[in-house]
């Protein structure tokens, strides 16, 4: 029962995390390989203030604000780069954040991480049940926000920019402004996912926010189907349940420590196969298949 709850909570956090990336990658066509950096910023922001005695809701709000502000600061110079260069810069950004967390010991305790992060508590429920309810509500609310944003003229213009930036500029769209706002919003929700994760796990350290997590969240978006609301939900459910399912492989005792490596290899393989065979993911964007 507790393990089932754990899987469900992880799925919800990844749904929020991957949906926030989908806003950038799927709708605006921004290949942000540094999204995990905002997840880390959110996790640390909320952890630091709640450990200092502030309430969790304040910590979660702060995680969104800090991630959004850092997102703006990140986007401003980096969006002058295009395509591959933007991807490389975003990858470097995530690594920079991880190294900052690792080395600024006065603030983050460096590699020792932050233990004892307050757990979510409501109505006297067990820790996991309380976390499930709060995370479910916040994830649902966030998805609702994404739906409103993406079905609005803002979302439509994002698609226009993704489809043809040249046309967007010719018709008066301030492309940089749209991208900056998208990264700020995506980062805010990525930060919220990080904050929720910190309060659920109870302990964070810089190495939790590695390249592997980047690959995992990109896989959730790409496998499910980028540019669709439902894609990252399905992708997250599959990636988390299959990843956890691997723990039950009947491996010899000497190999059980290697499950994490098997997971990484499998996810990498799936990502490559997807790119080759079904780049649009399981849930194709409505019109993708009808293109002539």
């Amino acid at each position: 029962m507790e393990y089932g709850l754990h899987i469900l909570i992880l799925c919800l956090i990844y749904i929020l995390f991957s949906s926030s990336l989908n806003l950038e990658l799927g709708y605006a066509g921004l290949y942000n390989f540094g999204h995990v950096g905002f997840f880390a910023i959110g996790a640390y922001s909320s952890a630091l203030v709640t450990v200092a005695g502030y309430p969790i809701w304040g910590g979660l709000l702060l995680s969104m604000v800090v991630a959004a502000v850092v997102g703006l600061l990140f986007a401003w110079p980096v969006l002058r780069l295009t395509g591959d260069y933007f991807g490389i810069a975003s990858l470097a950004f995530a690594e920079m954040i991880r190294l900052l967390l690792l080395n600024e010991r006065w603030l983050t305790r460096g590699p020792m991480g932050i233990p004892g992060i307050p757990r979510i508590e409501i109505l006297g429920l067990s820790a996991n049940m309380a976390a499930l309810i709060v995370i479910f509500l916040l994830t649902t609310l966030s998805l609702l926000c994404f739906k409103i944003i993406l079905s609005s003229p803002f979302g439509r213009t994002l698609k226009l920019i993704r489809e043809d930036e040249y046309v967007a500029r010719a018709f008066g769209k301030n492309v940089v402004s749209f991208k900056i706002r998208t990264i700020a919003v995506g980062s805010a929700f990525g930060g919220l996912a990080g904050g929720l994760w910190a309060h659920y796990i109870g302990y964070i350290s810089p190495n939790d926010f590695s390249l592997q997590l980047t690959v995992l969240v990109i896989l959730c978006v790409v496998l499910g189907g980028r540019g669709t609301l439902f894609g990252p939900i399905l992708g997250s459910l599959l990636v988390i349940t299959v990843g956890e399912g691997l723990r039950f492989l009947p491996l010899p005792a000497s190999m059980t420590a290697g499950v994490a490596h098997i997971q990484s290899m499998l996810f990498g393989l799936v990502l490559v196969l997807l790119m080759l065979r079904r780049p649009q993911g399981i849930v194709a964007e409505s019109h993708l298949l009808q293109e002539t």
Partner: protein
Amino acid sequence: MLELHSISKQFGGNQVLHNVTIDLDDNTPITGLIGPNGSGKSTLFSVVMGFYQQDKGTVHFNGKQLDTLSPDKRCHQGLSCTFQDSRMLTFMTVLDNLTAIPTPQAGESLIKTFFSPRQVQREEKAIKEKAYEILDLLHLSRLAKEPAGSLSYGQRKLLEIGRVMMTDPKLVLLDEPTAGINPTLIQSLVEILQTLTQKGMRFFLVEHNIPLVNQLCDRVLVLDAGELIFNGTAEAARRDRQVIQAYLGSDGYVDA
């Protein structure tokens, strides 16, 4: 209306435009720009729209200097364009290809999206109504919900005109609007352009279809190897020795 003064543009060692000076006035509904392939027509359009920065010269539109303005800001001045290769938003519906165009829209502000939904809905309704009116004019209404990628090449060219109409521009740069489309659609296009000119819209037309240029354009400009070699009526262009040489490479008359 549009004043280009001594525009020069070079790519590497290739001088694409050389001291081109053009003055389009408001009284000429459609001005044609013709010239052999590689004469610099599309480059000139890109300079006017701000996609290329000229090496020398100035661009003024309705008295305002555009040189430092980005393409999106030039659009706000009332300039619009279509593209030689019909840049359709193929994964968006035909309707969305039009509704996405007007700028600014209230719903493009995230704050208004969440806190003034009624204003956004009202504006969205008006934009959709206008889009459907344009689709009716273009005979594309029945395809409104289809992906633009499913349109034929000719229909895409018509939809491009529709996109332009969504912005109510003062001057439209049309880059080979009839290239690759059948005579029936060309006739539809001609009728649409004539309707729009009656509403006050002005066009600067790059076209290789010389009979069409003769039919539509009161004034023709001819570019050859980046230089403006003719500025006058279509009739006079057909008899101009320099123009004939540029097109045919020897003396002779263009049979139009």
